[in-house]
């Protein structure tokens, strides 16, 4: 197993962990954490691919992508947390009611 494969496999595992967390956790903050773990998985795969492609240096394009991805993720996370905060102000809870989902 090469280093690339090891970390790519770790990406798959992290992806599953994050997804599971996103699905089963009801608190919004934890859902966001789940998404961030999924994000880490994606970044891991990209960096692993960059590592696989290294010549004098590792492939800089995935690196740039991951940097962008990290910034995007923190943006979305902050927005989600601000929303969660306001939902808490309005409704007193940080969960979403389930019955709205079906309608």
């Amino acid at each position, binding site marked *: 197993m090469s280093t690339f494969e090891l970390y790519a496999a770790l990406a798959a595992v992290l992806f599953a962990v994050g997804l599971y967390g*996103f699905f089963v956790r009801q608190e919004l903050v934890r859902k966001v954490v789940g998404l961030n773990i*999924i994000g880490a998985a*994606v970044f891991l*795969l990209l960096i692993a691919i960059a590592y696989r492609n290294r010549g004098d240096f590792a492939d800089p394009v995935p690196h740039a992508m991951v940097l962008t991805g990290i910034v995007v993720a923190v943006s979305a996370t902050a*927005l989600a947390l601000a929303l969660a905060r*306001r939902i808490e102000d*309005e409704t007193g809870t940080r969960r979403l009611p389930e019955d*709205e*989902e079906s*309608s």
Partner: protein
Amino acid sequence: MSSPFEWLIFLPFAGGVITFLLPGKSRPWLALLLTVGTFAAAWWLASDVWREGPQGYALGGWEAPLGINLYADGLSALLLLTTSAVMTLASFYSLGYFSREAEASSWTEARAFVPLWLFLLGSLNALFVSRDLFNLYVALELLTIAGVALVALAGGATALRAGMRYLLAAFLASLLYLMGVALLYGEFGVLDLALIAEAAEGGTRAPVIALAFVFLGLGIKAALFPFHAWLPHAHASAPAPVSAVLSALVVKAAFYVILRLWVDVFADSVTAPAAQAAGALGAAGILWGSFQALREQRLKLVVAHSTVAQVGYLFLLFPLLTGVGEGAWRFDAWAGGVYHMMSHAFAKGALFLAAGTILYAYGNDQISAMRGLTRTLPITTVSFGIAGIALVGLPPSGSFIAKWMLLTATIESAQWWWAVVIGAGTLLSGAYVYRLVSAAFTPDTLPESIRPVPRVMEYASLILALTSLGLGLRAAEPFDLLEVGAPFSMIVAGVGT
């Protein structure tokens, strides 16, 4: 600034910056001006495409694979035109919709709205001209964040919760898409769509799985059944112009990426069963969305559920494009699907604006409260009716032509089951449009007080509705434009390798 690409990107984003920083009442007017300018740029690009064929543009002078290249064929040009046209009219509408709020030192929806609005326009433009997998991701992300912020603008628990659902779904979808992109990069080592198209031949499993991730993510963003649950409340609780644009354009943007990848890039990798599966989900969406629309009591929720149904039609395109066994792709299915996108954009825009007008005037949007609408808001009723016609796909709307094309493809490729779906969808949409129209015709137990509606709101939705009708009267030019760049090769002379 000698290329329309530059203006398409520059104008809205510059407008977003300026309107965010500058105070003053001129802000909405500036937004309007810029949307009109964007329309002009889209027109420019479309005429270039029309005369010279597909256009390309290398940002920063860096050609693919290292740089990011832009690309526009007939499809992009039409969608850009649609986008700026709908947004221009919605901007007109917003002049009236937000006008009541005094622009003082305190926070107003109008002031927060304008820059977000222009950013949304910019990100739509960026998306429709992108030829780069990762650039598409960033554009989609811009779109999502702007969309969520605009939904939350309405305030109140419902809108906030709806925005939250939207954000969670879209965030997950983005990550799925990005995972797919990572795998594709791992497989092909490039991000440029044209280069991937050259390299992609099907075969190994990795690209197929990567595509599954990409399409799953985009399917969530396009509210494909069963990933649609986030859509109805998000679209229904946003401010009216936002609802209009979310349903008319933003959902279509995600679909556009699917279409682009499916048809232009990975035509050899996608299989007939996958196409049938996409069609089946689309069909389920048509039925489910329509049934929900029949059950809802609130006008905007009916319209929002109808979006789920109408998105379903778009996915019927995939099984129809190639037919069951044959390899040759079908222009009628392609054109029908894209034309449906356009026609629905105008019709749904008109419907949401009209619904917003009713909400504005009556203070609520219960269907039962729409009684006497023909007398209180006749122009809005007319726009409602016309947009309803377009939604059902009756002539002479653009959707009729779209349906005609899709039906032709269905029958010629001997996939009668999709014809049944289209027929059933037509009747179901007829039923929920009927609910609304008949409520409007029910006389006249008027509410005691009706908030006076600025004329510009009524006429904006009327013009949108009439456009969806106009698309049905003359389709020759749009169809000719659609043929530019199709059948598909994204490789443009001078750009790419």
